[in-house]
């Protein structure tokens, strides 16, 4: 069976040049931000692929590319075997993908009752015959995400952050999607509420056979949610592997550094060695491997030559040192 979502060598650049006159005065050329620079992955049906990385690594851009909110600069995205733009022109296909955003305060219209927010996709896609059927479906959706049908009469401001995220999920589910793109769905929530939402998302995946693309900076959350995990750094995947492999035997030095940076809750007194430096500007990324200025095992080759992903155990790793060591 083909994977539900295939992303092949996708590139997205943004023009961040200054206005023409200023460019001429300063005698500088155009500047391009390579937000996503050659990314490939596939998500099998009913599974979750997570993308992790620090701010500016391009993970949210990938989320928007996959649902078609941004156009591609290069490469190709296929959904259920068909090119994404072809599929998005057909409403009966477009309803099959939905997105959940990070900020549950900004992503719900404050002037609409919850009932109307959840019913909007039903109306837009013509999925219900009449008002009675619509009301029944909205009640069902609200119940499914752990709210009560009476909550439909309220406005978003009457809910806490976690409940608002439940409303976003109900809205996303209303068009009967197969695929949900979740961009940091719990990072704005408190930890006890985060657990509620993560449990809900897992249950819905099991019950409805959903496929998730899950974007997060929180590795512990990713471990709980994912089948496959991709680690991004400056617009590229440095490592992609099944979740268990990635967490038990991380290969790329950046993946290891990220795992190392997580505070130790078991209080074993382990001394952490934080990775030095910061993420460089994606407008002027370092030559060769973008991670080399911060990498503890960088070699001369890493400065000169961009590493390509190679197979390592069950996943792919883009690192010269790992490749040479394995060879």
């Amino acid at each position, binding site marked *: 069976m083909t994977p539900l979502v295939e992303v092949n060598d996708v590139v997205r650049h943004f023009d961040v040049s200054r206005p023409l006159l200023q460019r001429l005065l300063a005698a500088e050329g155009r500047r391009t931000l390579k937000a996503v620079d050659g990314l490939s992955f596939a998500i099998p049906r009913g599974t979750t692929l997570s993308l992790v990385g*620090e*701010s500016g690594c391009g993970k949210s851009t990938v989320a928007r590319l996959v649902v078609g909110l941004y156009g591609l600069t290069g490469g190709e995205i296929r959904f259920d075997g068909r090119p994404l733009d072809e599929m998005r022109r057909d409403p009966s296909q477009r309803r099959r993908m939905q997105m959940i955003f990070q900020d549950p305060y900004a992503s719900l219209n404050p002037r609409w009752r919850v009932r109307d927010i959840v019913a909007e996709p039903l109306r837009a896609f013509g999925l219900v015959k009449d008002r009675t059927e619509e009301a029944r479906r909205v009640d069902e959706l609200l119940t499914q995400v752990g709210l009560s049908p009476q909550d439909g009469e309220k406005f978003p401001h009457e809910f806490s952050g976690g409940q608002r995220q439940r409303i976003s999920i109900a809205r996303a589910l209303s068009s009967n999607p197969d695929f949900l793109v979740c961009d940091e769905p719990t990072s704005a929530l*408190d930890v006890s509420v985060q*657990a509620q939402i993560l449990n809900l998302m897992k249950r819905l995946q099991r019950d409805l056979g959903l496929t998730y693309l899950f974007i997060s900076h929180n590795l512990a959350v990713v471990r709980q949610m994912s089948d496959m995990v991709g680690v991004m750094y400056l617009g590229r995947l440095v490592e992609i592997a099944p979740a268990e492999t990635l967490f038990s035997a991380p290969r790329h030095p950046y993946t290891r550094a990220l795992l190392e940076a*997580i505070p130790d*809750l078991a*209080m074993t007194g382990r001394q952490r060695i934080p990775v*030095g430096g910061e993420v460089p500007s994606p407008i002027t990324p370092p030559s060769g491997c973008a991670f080399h200025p911060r990498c503890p095992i960088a070699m001369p080759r890493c400065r000169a030559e961009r590493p390509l992903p190679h197979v390592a155990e069950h996943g792919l790793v883009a690192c010269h040192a790992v490749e040479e060591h394995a060879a």
Partner: protein
Amino acid sequence: MPLLDVENLRVEFPTRRGVLTALDGVSFGIEAGEVLGIVGESGAGKSMTGAAIIGLLEPPGRIAGGRILFDGRRIDDLPYEEKRRLRGKEIGAIFQDPLTTLNPLYTVGRQLAETMTTHLPIGPGEARKRAVQWLDMVGIPSAAQRIDAYPHEFSGGMRQRVVIALALCAEPRLVVADEPTTALDVSIQAQVIALLKTIVRERGAAMMLVTHDMGVIAETADRVAVMYAGRIAEIGPVRDVVLHPSHPYTAGLMASIPPIDRRVEVLAQIEGSMPRLSAIPQGCAFHPRCARAFDRCRRERPELRAANGTAAACWLFEEGA
């Protein structure tokens, strides 16, 4: 006697619909050289506690009861000018967003030097020299060159380092840090926490570290206070609170943190969410969400009592119960 002593602190917000109580009966102390962590979820009152101590409560919020003693001297009722002097000299503050702390119109060197000449008996030349030393100490590369740079010329992680230098350069005896690493990426977060901890330890200063991140607390604090709905639910040595929590809320909070070392099928969760200030339940504020609540919890409010190694505000730990 502790360096900072907070006794029965009560903070109120008058609103059109009546007075809201944001903090109620909050008491704790911090010894010199000690790091006290304050954790809680949004709306628990942790930042409010920090703001009350440094005298920066947002109006119309006001201290409506209790006392705050610094080195044995009462500071909550000081006039504005004296409070301001105390805040720069004796109490340093670090906030979440470094951009709001730094003045965008002045170079970082000037801001550091000005802070030092205001609060320490040194001249401008000496202050500039020390400013370079401070930038160097907080890990800013080529500090001597960067001292004349403006805040916007630094990256987020570097800016937070500048803020730390700024909060510490007048050599305060107490540092109040409110979510100092929340705006930073994990790899930078670890660097900044390590730095903060080292400098505070070396100088023998006390620190109050406000955060929602239990991991940060576990790594940094000596003792920790867990807040819920404007009160302290549990307070004690960090090992006891993190590894063997007594209060059902602390236990639930710890259990709901997703583990990094294994996958669990269903995460532990606390049903419901923190009550709003306008609707704090009677009795123990946590009782509607507590699996172990009984009759008394709904009627009477529990005070902090010795539990297993910590102090917990919970009727499960009533003497003789």
